[in-house]
């Protein structure tokens, strides 16, 4: 959902897969998804975010720094080719020379033989966040675990390779397990900060989010309406907002 005041085309968040076009669960019962938040002040960051998540989704790899470097190179070349094909005004030339920037949250979930649950591995650059909930209780937040951890200067992945030299040190990776019934929420920073604050107050934002989805996306009481209300009340920062909610039923289910 774009920030208030911007059009859908101006949304600089990206996610994959966009489930209408791509399978969410693969033949091996694994699941791969990604979200990315493009930096507003940089040029063509929305494009950069989309290239990153699409390359991650199609990579078929497990998250790792080495794989990320390869994916970044591919996405970067595609971004540069896109820029080379444009006749840019002078104000855009400098921004393009500086490159585009974005966060990235890459999640892969796998089954574990005949076990009821499985493993997951996440790789993050920046302040997009992953929450794991079990039986309505938050069991983990990654990489940011306190609401004060969200600020305006996260580490970002650049479309210019030379600017990523120090980024690799800041990549965060986590490996853990999941059980049937677990929920995962992948969100960009505005909604992540709201979720974290809610949990810190003893509330259950996961229940609220689930209710929004139950009501629908565009319907009354649904996702969009509730995001708008939170923004109007000042509880949610006015920023592009992306959320992937994954409910894991177990390896033998259809989902």
């Amino acid at each position: 959902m774009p920030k208030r005041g911007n059009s859908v085309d101006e949304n600089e968040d990206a996610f994959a897969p966009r489930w209408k076009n791509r399978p969410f669960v693969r033949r091996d019962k694994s699941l791969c998804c990604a979200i990315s938040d493009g930096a507003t002040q940089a040029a063509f960051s929305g494009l950069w975010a989309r290239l990153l998540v699409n390359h991650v989704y199609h990579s078929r790899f497990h998250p790792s720094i080495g794989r990320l470097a390869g994916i970044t190179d591919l996405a970067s070349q595609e971004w540069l080719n896109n820029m080379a094909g444009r006749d840019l005004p002078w104000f855009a030339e400098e921004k393009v020379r500086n490159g585009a920037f974005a966060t990235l949250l890459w999640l892969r979930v796998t089954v574990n033989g005949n076990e009821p649950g499985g493993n997951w591995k996440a790789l993050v650059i920046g302040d997009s966040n992953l929450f794991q909930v079990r039986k309505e209780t938050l069991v983990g937040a990654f990489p940011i675990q306190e609401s004060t951890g969200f600020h305006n200067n996260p580490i970002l992945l650049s479309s210019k390779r030379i600017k990523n030299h120090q980024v690799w040190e800041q990549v965060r990776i986590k490996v853990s397990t999941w059980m049937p019934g677990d929920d995962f929420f992948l969100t960009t920073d505005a909604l992540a900060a709201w979720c974290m604050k809610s949990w810190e107050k003893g509330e259950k934002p996961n229940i609220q989010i689930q209710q929004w989805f139950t009501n629908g996306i565009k319907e009354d009481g649904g996702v969009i309406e509730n995001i708008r209300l939170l923004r109007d009340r000042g509880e949610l920062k006015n920023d592009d907002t992306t959320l992937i909610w994954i409910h894991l039923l177990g390896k033998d289910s259809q989902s």
Partner: protein
Amino acid sequence: MTYQAEISRTNPTCFLFLVDQSSSMHDPIMGVPGNLRKTEVVADNLNRILQVLVVTASKDAGIRRYYQVGVIGYNNDVNPILQGSLVDKELVWIDDLYQNPIRIEERMKKESDGAGGVIEVKTKFPIWIDPVASGQTHMCEALTRAKNILELWVKEYPFSYPPTVINLTDGEANDGDPRPAAEALKALATQDGNVTLLTLHVSSNQMMKQTFFPNTTEGLPDDPSRIMYEMSSLLTENMIRTAQEMHNLTLPVGSNGIVYNAPIESIMYALDIGTRPANMR
């Protein structure tokens, strides 16, 4: 809390520059023969900051109407000094500014290569303001003109981040005590706060001490500097943060918006600090 409003197309902000074009601006900066003239330094830095405002309002290949901008020159007369199809316009939208420079020059610019080094790149440098220096310093009239312009603006945009006025001058007003006019200007406000008035005094004397956003009148060398101190607003939190983040300058809370006896570099920093839009994301 003030100065928190998000700058957006629905709630744009405004930057108004008052430019001393009196005859003393023809003298070399810091009073050193062979230096650039003060009017050249001011014009060059103003063109640079207008370019920065265009760039920060840009998104991909377009420009968003995040700001209105005005440039008022003052000597014996007080008038808007943008040229071409922007002539006589007190305020223009940032995209209209982009569309209408007087000319575009090519200059070499140093940029970071991202690996700790610096490279020189040929860039386009649009020119909107040319140096002018003749006549007296009708600063009071300029401040009153600014007040009249912004009185209408704050009514039209009551929820916006309040306007920022930057007065670039090398001396005292010739048309009276500027403090009442400055107070009337600073009294204007949106719901997010009062108009901010910064004073950048361009150096005429290299022997005189430079003062950069002080929080006390102690150390100010003379009465004109103390008058300018009283005229100016306190720096906002955004400005203090910009000073730290962009220029590694630590300014205490309570810093006043005056730079006195400023050399070229300080003018650049001060313009940057005064115009960096902190509330866009």
